[in-house]
């Protein structure tokens, strides 16, 4: 009798265990486990010498910034306690810091640590690559008291707040930097191989070209404690192999899934496909000073002659958003200028070309990279085919990336380039970085990134003004006005912003793919 009873109890138990996970109960976060992320490229450095997103996404888990950019494009405090206060002349920015936070090495996070970090980047001798872009307008930094930092600006520069969300301005432990033997340009060696911050995960191991391992920071200060035991980034360079490793369950997340694989993967019950649009805009720039592109009608004609929607749907398998402005959504200061982009209208294109004196057709050369952006060569081929219908005979020319960068970066009087495809990621999350660096006439190549030699004094003036506007609404309106002019002037063939296609196994919960091209696993956990 007692044996039968025991059997019944055991059976009930087994049934309960078997049934429970299948009920699909609301997900209660579970602690433990190792999340493995497969990506195509390794990081180069995990220090303030970082310069690319494979660096940034790992740093973000280890070292935190004063402010944080939400995926919706809102700026919220992180290591700072509240939003900063600006002096009436907008020349000083005062930031209150959270207290009671410690770095992973046990040393306190305070104003002195923040000042040390910023001073290091500001010192030109240290040659931090993003100094000019992120902190270019900061003259000096004061630690007013243990929990207050003041940034003194050369001139009013409102985008600074967005820059403070950037992972390359994350606060590292000054003591740890010194203990590691400092940071040397160009890549912050030797500290760059063993970073120490305040973040939810601590650095554990880095085998170059193979993997980076982080472990849970049990003393994390934030309200949401990290749940995973470990996060591992594995380098799996081949797209196909990365997808197979995901299907085989050897990794949980595969970044940059090729568009051709998504239909097949969508049928796999063990996976989901995450499509997050990124802040990277892809365009074909025209040399605005050189015929035929020194005529705005020609530039507009190209925009009318290409069916951007068709390219996004077919060539990119839906993993793209047709540009409706020079920058993408998710950026502070973005607003859509023309829904759906320039309409596809071959007749209008032909008419504009005829008005510009090219009724008999026009010959141009378009340069494009191969393998740098999603399906870049295929997009270029589609553009070429569509241009033909409008009487435009485009010759495609490709070049390996390193040569491509140099070739498109020549001064206006020397460059042979007529038009070229490039992408721009507005990674600071602020319109200033996406517009000033590209469209302001002070930024002509090779000094700046205006490699297409666009100049419009009105745009210059608006972009200058917006840098000093503290009123968010007025600033947004100013950017809108500037973007409307840029859109009409059509210095580019506006194409699309890329979507990040990420394959994720079903058991992975609360993983975030950020528009700034990073996998964010702060709150991620594994359902078992």
């Amino acid at each position: 009798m007692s044996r039968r009873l025991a059997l019944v109890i055991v059976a009930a138990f087994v049934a309960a265990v078997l049934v429970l996970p299948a009920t699909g109960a609301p997900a209660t976060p579970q602690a433990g486990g190792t999340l493995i992320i497969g990506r195509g490229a390794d990081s180069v450095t995990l220090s303030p010498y970082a310069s690319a997103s494979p660096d940034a996404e790992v740093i973000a888990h280890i070292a935190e910034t004063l402010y944080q950019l939400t995926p919706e494009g809102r700026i919220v405090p992180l290591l700072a306690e509240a939003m900063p206060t600006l002096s009436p002349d907008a020349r000083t920015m005062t930031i209150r810091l959270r207290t009671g936070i410690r770095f992973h090495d046990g040393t306190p996070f305070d104003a002195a640590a923040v000042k040390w970090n910023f001073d290091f980047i500001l010192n030109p001798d240290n040659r931090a690559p993003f100094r000019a872009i992120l902190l270019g307008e900061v003259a000096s930094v004061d630690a007013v008291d243990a929990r207050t930092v003041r940034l003194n600006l050369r001139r009013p520069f409102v985008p600074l707040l967005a820059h403070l969300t950037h992972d390359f301005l994350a606060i590292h432990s000054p003591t740890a930097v010194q203990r590691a033997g400092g940071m040397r340009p160009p890549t912050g060696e030797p500290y760059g191989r063993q970073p120490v911050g305040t973040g939810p995960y601590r650095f554990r191991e880095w085998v170059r070209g193979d993997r980076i391992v982080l472990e849970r920071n049990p003393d994390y200060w934030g309200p949401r404690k990290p749940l995973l035991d470990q996060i591992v980034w594995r380098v799996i360079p081949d797209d196909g192999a990365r997808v197979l490793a995901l299907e085989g369950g050897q990794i949980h997340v595969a970044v940059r899934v090729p568009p051709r694989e998504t239909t097949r993967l969508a049928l796999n019950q063990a996976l989901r496909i995450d499509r997050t649009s990124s802040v990277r805009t892809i365009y074909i720039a025209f040399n605005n000073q050189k015929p035929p592109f020194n005529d705005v009608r020609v530039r507009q004609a190209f925009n009318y002659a290409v069916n951007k929607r068709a390219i996004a749907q077919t060539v990119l398998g839906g993993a793209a958003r047709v540009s409706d402005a020079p920058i993408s959504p998710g950026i502070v200061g973005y607003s859509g200028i023309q829904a759906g982009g320039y309409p596809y209208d071959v007749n209008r294109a032909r008419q504009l070309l005829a008005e510009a004196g090219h009724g008999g057709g026009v010959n141009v050369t378009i340069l494009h990279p191969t393998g740098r952006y999603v399906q870049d060569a295929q997009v270029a081929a589609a553009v070429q085919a569509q241009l033909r219908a409008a009487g435009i005979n485009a010759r495609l020319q490709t070049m390996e990336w390193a040569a491509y960068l140099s070739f498109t970066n020549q001064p206006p009087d020397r460059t042979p380039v007529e038009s070229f495809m490039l992408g721009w990621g507005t990674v600071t999350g602020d319109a200033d970085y996406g517009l000033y660096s590209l469209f302001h006439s002070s930024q002509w190549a090779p000094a700046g990134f205006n490699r297409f030699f666009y100049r419009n004094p009105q745009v210059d003036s608006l972009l200058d003004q917006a840098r000093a506007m503290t009123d968010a609404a007025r600033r947004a309106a100013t950017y809108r006005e500037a973007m409307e002019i840029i859109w009409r002037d059509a210095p580019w063939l506006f194409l699309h912003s890329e979507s990040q296609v990420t394959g994720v196994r079903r058991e992975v919960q609360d993983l975030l793919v950020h528009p700034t091209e990073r996998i964010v696993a702060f709150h991620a956990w594994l359902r078992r």
Partner: protein
Amino acid sequence: MWRYLLKRVLLAIPVLLGVSIVVFAMVRFIPGDPAQIMAGQAATQEVVEQIRESLGLDQPILVQYAYFLRNALTGDLGRSLFSGVPVSEELGQRFPRTVRLALASIFVAALIGIPAGILSATRHLSWVDSIVMILALAGVSIPVFWLGLNLILVFSVRLHWMPAFGYETWRHLVLPSITLGTASAAIIARMTRSAMLEVLRQDYVRTARAKGLAERVVVNHHALRNALIPVVTVVGLQLGALLSGAVLTETVFSWPGIGKLLVDSVLARDYPIIQGAVLLIAATFVFLNVVVDATYAMLDPRIRYE
């Protein structure tokens, strides 16, 4: 013999010097600027100039070469422009992995290729011969990418027998070495077959048969040893190729070896790594050639290097 080997090793010095000059010049004449790549496409010209200067890339090329040579003689190959890691450390980590993969692959290749070649030669013009040669043709023609991904699909994703990536244990070695060894196996099989066919037509083989020796003894003892010389050459060259040319396999199986390192470095214009890796590969080829020559003497008593 020893004097000969010593002479060969000394001869390697001008070879490596020549290689270093060619590589040094070549990487600097191809378009593309490491400072620009390192600074990122968004960097200002000022930052790029600073980086170039800090890397010593603003110096005349002859000065740069003199520095390189001086440091190389003391065993210092410089540091990676990108990671800042010493080149010797990077190569020291990567090369043993590639060696492990290449040795396993050549083992697979010889294990399949030599018996297949012998089988084919002894059954000359039979259906066995035809099948082996068709397989060999397929072996050299199959793209490494296709083969590697399909092996992963079957043995890793479907059957869960083998890991899809990584390099830590012997299990990680199985699929990549089959992938990498297949083409070499095919080449070795063809070479073994033709060498064997030639030897089997020789008088001494006919004599051996006439003595009434078993066919197995004739093939294994009289014919094979004499046929091995060209086979050893091919195996040696294949091993050299595997050590330097495993890029595709290393990419498919995420095997962080020297082939992948070299390609990444070329794309990034990481001059010190390119120079170091090419020198190492050249030295490996020279070394393998000496080993192959020495093996001849062991296989064929008539060969003497005096």
